[in-house]
């Protein structure tokens, strides 16, 4: 197991008081991690940017609470996941039928196919299972942290992850010897 790498948590800790300058610094430092996490949740570049903006806008509104939270990044993740779920419900049809975004297929040819295949496999998962996979394998969160982000129990996280991995294993894009 690698060292936990939560890009949001790893950003500089600049929060602490309620002023626009600190919010700006917070937003700037968290933005890349939010967009990447949102892309993992949605599979769509534009949507990812949009819900990352939404999450930060909501954090702006609740800045006093966010900045005083024990774990502001956990708070932000929760906002992001909620925004993603709302978006998912509204756009599910379009999302399922959408083309793969350009960003996912940049790079050497072998990586292009691999990224596209993983993206397609993630898209087959229900939103909550997809979120569990991304939060576990991208943000390296524990069951409890994922449960906090999703607003469910740790037991539900484990069962969702189990189902998600079973689905991914059955996906032909994960060839022999490379099954997750």
């Amino acid at each position, binding site marked *: 197991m690698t060292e936990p790498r939560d890009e949001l948590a790893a950003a500089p800790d600049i929060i602490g008081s309620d002023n626009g300058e600190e919010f700006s610094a917070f937003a700037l430092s968290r933005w890349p991690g939010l967009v990447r996490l949102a892309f993992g949740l949605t599979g769509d570049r*534009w949507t990812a940017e949009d819900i990352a903006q939404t999450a930060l806008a909501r954090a702006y*509104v609740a800045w006093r609470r966010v900045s005083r939270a024990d774990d502001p990044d956990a708070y932000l993740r929760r906002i992001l996941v909620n925004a993603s779920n709302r978006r998912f419900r509204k756009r599910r*049809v379009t999302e399922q039928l959408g083309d793969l975004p350009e960003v*996912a297929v940049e790079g050497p040819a072998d990586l292009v196919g691999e990224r596209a295949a993983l993206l397609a496999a993630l898209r087959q998962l*229900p939103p909550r299972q997809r979120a569990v996979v*991304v939060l576990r394998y991208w943000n390296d969160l524990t069951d409890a942290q994922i449960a906090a982000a999703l607003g469910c129990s740790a037991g539900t996280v484990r069962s969702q992850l189990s189902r998600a991995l079973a689905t991914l294993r059955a996906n032909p894009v994960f060839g022999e010897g490379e099954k*997750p």
Partner: protein
Amino acid sequence: MTPTEDTELRRRVDDLLGAVQPPDVRLDRIIRRGQGIRLRRAGAAAVGAGVAAIIAVTTLGLHASRSPTTAPSGPVTRGGFIASGTADGHAWKLAVQDIADPGYRCLPAITINGTDADPVYPDPENVSVVTLGPAFRGVGFGFIQLPANSSGITVNGRLHVPAVTAAACGYRYHVTGFAYSLEQAVRVTVDHPPPGWPTDFPISQPLPSGVTPQSDGLWINTYAVHGETASGLLASGYLSGQEWSMQVMLGPGGDCYAFNGNGYQMGSCGPVGMPDGAETIMALPLGFPEADIGATGYAVPVSPGTAHLEAVFSNGSSELATPRVVDGRKYVAFIVPDPLQLARLTWLDAAGRVIASTTALPQYGYVQFQP
């Protein structure tokens, strides 16, 4: 999961998401969105829950206070007219209309040829596009709500479309509408954008019609749209001891349905029709792993004259479902447990007379049906 599998999946996810290069953060836009949320919350708190119409007016007033975001006070078009033209040999017209059933609170929406409605709010920055399928193959339609001092837009640097002020349900909308070819990207340039507004809007392209019939008729709101018109419970019950429910959320994404069961959810959005227009039959399959059973949730917005919807299943049994009204619109919802399938839907009026019937039913996603 073995350690090798775990490592491999981690590597793949890391590679996929690590390849994403986020654009520069738009702090101005984030803060403006946040301020908008604050204003709307202030409006809702001032008026109190349960008086939706008054809340809307108050919110409009708050929007007005951060001008220039209101419609101008000049003349309004007749019948909510926004724009019209001819595309693919067929006439089209955009208008803002009331889409609530008769007798209910007015519910404004922008429609294309009187169908396929997109609920609207007094909310500049709302940009939305739609494709209608075979009737307009290769053609997309869009509208944008503009700030009060804007005289119009230019589409792809060539077509200038003037803004009009259209009215419905007591609101005025400073808006412009246009048709465009799906073969090219769309960029809308706004005349005289106020400070804080982008000068142009690149628009996410709806997928080509015909290839993706599931997206036809579903408006895609490409920028921030504030407000969700309504949501409500359509049906609920138990299946093999597992609790389920179906909800509808009518908002900028259309009629969005959620089928929930024991912590799982399947959701999807479908086109919004006029009260007597085409009806969207939505099917949402969902598994209940704990009970080792699956079911498909069906939701149908029905016409005002519909008193019941009879669902006939593949084994010959049937169920009579009663509509529920959410924000002035009637919906019917029910579930079909596996392995049964829905074989026929029949619309009945209050006297039990058949209004319409169909066997063209989806197993997943939606179809549109004109009773």
